[in-house]
């Protein structure tokens, strides 16, 4: 994988490069990269601690409380421990791919954060730059590209383990991530339509100043809800964590991993959670937008605080979902994705596009969506009625399949003499 693949040849909006590249500019880029990297690592550490603490609070437990104040260093201790664990590679594994897979998971997780606008503009020593690692013209497509690359890590991890349960987990993972990517993309399209640009900075700027300009409100709440559901599925978090369903698949795709490779998968998962929260804030909640009090020299701080605050809200929602909801069944997951979220997001996209052209077009599109929705619902109910009779597993507690209300098939052998 080559991350340079997604680099804009000409930085479009970041004024940093307009003056040519001097040492100072290079230094600024370097500092940005190092700061984002470090901040993400620390954020992951805190996120794991936060999740464990919140979950234990919700379950009336104490949670980590030994390492550091409030157990805040617990993750660091776990990380150090994992470094010194034995690194096992199964005999039947594909060694190269087995070693490659954790990196394929974690690199997209890191890179996707590059397009998130963290704050406003800052001027340091005559150089004005945006608090954002990169603002490529392809903007939000970069996120979609990275999330489609993230599939590989999990898929290959499961396959290369040369073992049954990881393979099942990775097959589930890739099917799930591909399915929900469609709904994810379609809701992103509504945001792009209403903004008129792909760049994340433009998306944030278009939502500035008033909270009713935020896309979550301006687009109707539906796209935001679909997006968030798709994001939860995309990050394989509960209630969509069938990929690593302990009760069915031992540990899913990472069953055979140990030591630091195992830690890398978890680093990537939490990194993805943070990135996706930040992206949700960017796309639907105005990013760093919020009231800025007039305090000299601290004008740059408030947008960052707003951004962090909003992101933490969504991080909490991620944890909350894990504590509150049971894991879905696989067919429920696929039903939700294909039969509900994708048609709904498609219809909503049509409505938004219609209203952008003209009010009457919007009404027409809404009507078309309703008609299409009714047709699809009818088709689903017909299909479901057919599926019921073809259920592979007989219902629990009934030894012989019998049709309700049909005495002919009520015999012990199924009634047809076979």
């Amino acid at each position, binding site marked *: 994988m080559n991350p340079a693949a997604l680099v804009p040849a000409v930085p479009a909006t970041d004024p940093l490069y307009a003056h040519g590249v001097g040492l100072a500019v290079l230094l600024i880029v370097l500092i940005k990269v190092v700061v984002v990297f470090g901040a993400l690592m620390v954020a992951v550490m805190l996120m794991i601690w936060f999740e464990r603490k919140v979950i234990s609070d919700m379950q009336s437990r104490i949670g980590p409380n030994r390492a550091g104040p409030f157990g805040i260093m617990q993750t660091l201790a776990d990380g150090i421990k994992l470094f010194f664990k034995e690194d096992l590679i199964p005999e039947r594994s594909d060694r190269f791919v087995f070693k490659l897979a954790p990196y394929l998971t974690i690199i997209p997780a890191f890179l996707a954060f590059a397009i998130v606008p963290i704050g406003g503009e800052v001027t340091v020593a005559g150089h004005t730059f945006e608090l954002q690692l990169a603002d490529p013209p392809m903007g939000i497509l970069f996120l979609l590209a990275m999330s489609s690359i993230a599939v590989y890590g999990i898929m290959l991890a499961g396959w290369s383990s040369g073992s049954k349960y990881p393979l099942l987990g990775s097959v589930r993972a890739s099917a799930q991530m591909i399915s929900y*990517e469609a709904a994810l993309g379609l809701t992103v399209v509504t945001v792009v339509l209403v903004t008129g640009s792909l760049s994340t900075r433009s998306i944030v700027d278009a939502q500035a100043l008033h909270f009713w300009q935020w896309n979550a409100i301006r687009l109707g709440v539906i796209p935001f809800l679909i997006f968030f559901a798709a994001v939860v599925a995309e990050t394989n978090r509960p209630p969509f964590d069938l990929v690593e369903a302990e009760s069915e698949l031992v540990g899913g795709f990472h069953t055979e991993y140990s030591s630091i490779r195992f830690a890398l998968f978890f680093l990537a998962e939490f990194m993805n959670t943070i990135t996706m929260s930040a992206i949700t804030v960017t796309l639907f909640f105005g990013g760093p937008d919020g009231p800025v009090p007039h305090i000299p020299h601290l004008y740059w701080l408030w947008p960052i605080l707003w951004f962090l605050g909003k992101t933490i809200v969504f991080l909490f929602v991620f944890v909350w979902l894990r504590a509150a909801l049971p894991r879905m069944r696989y067919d429920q997951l696929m039903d939700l994705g294909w039969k509900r979220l994708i048609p709904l997001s498609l219809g909503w996209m049509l409505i938004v596009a219609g209203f952008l052209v003209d009010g009457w077009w919007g009404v027409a599109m809404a009507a078309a969506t309703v008609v299409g929705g009714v047709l699809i619902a009818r088709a689903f109910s017909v299909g479901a009625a057919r599926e019921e009779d073809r259920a592979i597993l007989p219902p629990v507690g009934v030894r012989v399949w019998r049709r309700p209300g049909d005495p002919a098939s009520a015999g012990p052998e*199924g009634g047809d003499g076979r």
Partner: protein
Amino acid sequence: MIATLLLVHLPAVLAVASHPSTVDVSVFAVASAIVLAGGVGVVVARNPVHAALMLVMTLFGVAVLFVLQRDDFLAAVQVIVYAGAIVVLFLFVIMFLGVDKEENLRVEPLRGQRPVAVALGLLALVGTLVLGSVSHWTTGAHAVSGPADAPGGNVALLGRSVFTTYLFPFEVTAALLVIAVVGAVVLARRPPATRPEGSPGAAAMPVPGSGEGGAEDADEGAPADAEAHPGTGAGEPDGTGEPDTAEKAPAAAGAAGATGQAAPDVTDAAQAAEGVAR
């Protein structure tokens, strides 16, 4: 990791820092090396999964080349569609069918195909070079419909061309894809199982209009299903049954369709499809 994040910026910095042509040439050289190495790897790799990964590498190289042409939209789409969807489906099928075994490359299924391939490749290379240098096929222009760094960028340009000048080809392509998907689903989903002695509606295809009739047939076949399936269902550790298969139908469509046509009993076809999906 820091180095990776830095790489995001590197070409942008270089592009402005030094003479553009040197940067262009060096990026082109590196990207071409990636593309070529990936392409050779696809052919040489013994394991189909490795070959698919090499294909991903090639696609990334092509994406870099798109970026070099200032078409970063196409680069992103290249990664999303080809690397993110199509090769993933390749891998899917490879994993499902269990063909991810090392192959002996010395066995030639078609005799003499290698010399012919080399000869055709050389012919294509020479032809391209000759046409490029002699004729007017290469103009050297970076864009045909306007400057790529115009306001709105090439996304706007691309959108305008696709929805005005090239609207008909675009829509026809869309229709083609829809037809392919519908065909795959129809092939993969055989009519509901019926008794071997056969009821009149046994061969009814699952068309939307015949909902009641199809359900009726399925009723007739239900006991047979219940008998036939527990064996397969119990052997399936993740406990996902038919819906699972149905959702993955497009991926496994070709294989399932082929098996289904060969199998006389429809229940067998369903089992075959399930095996593929597993």
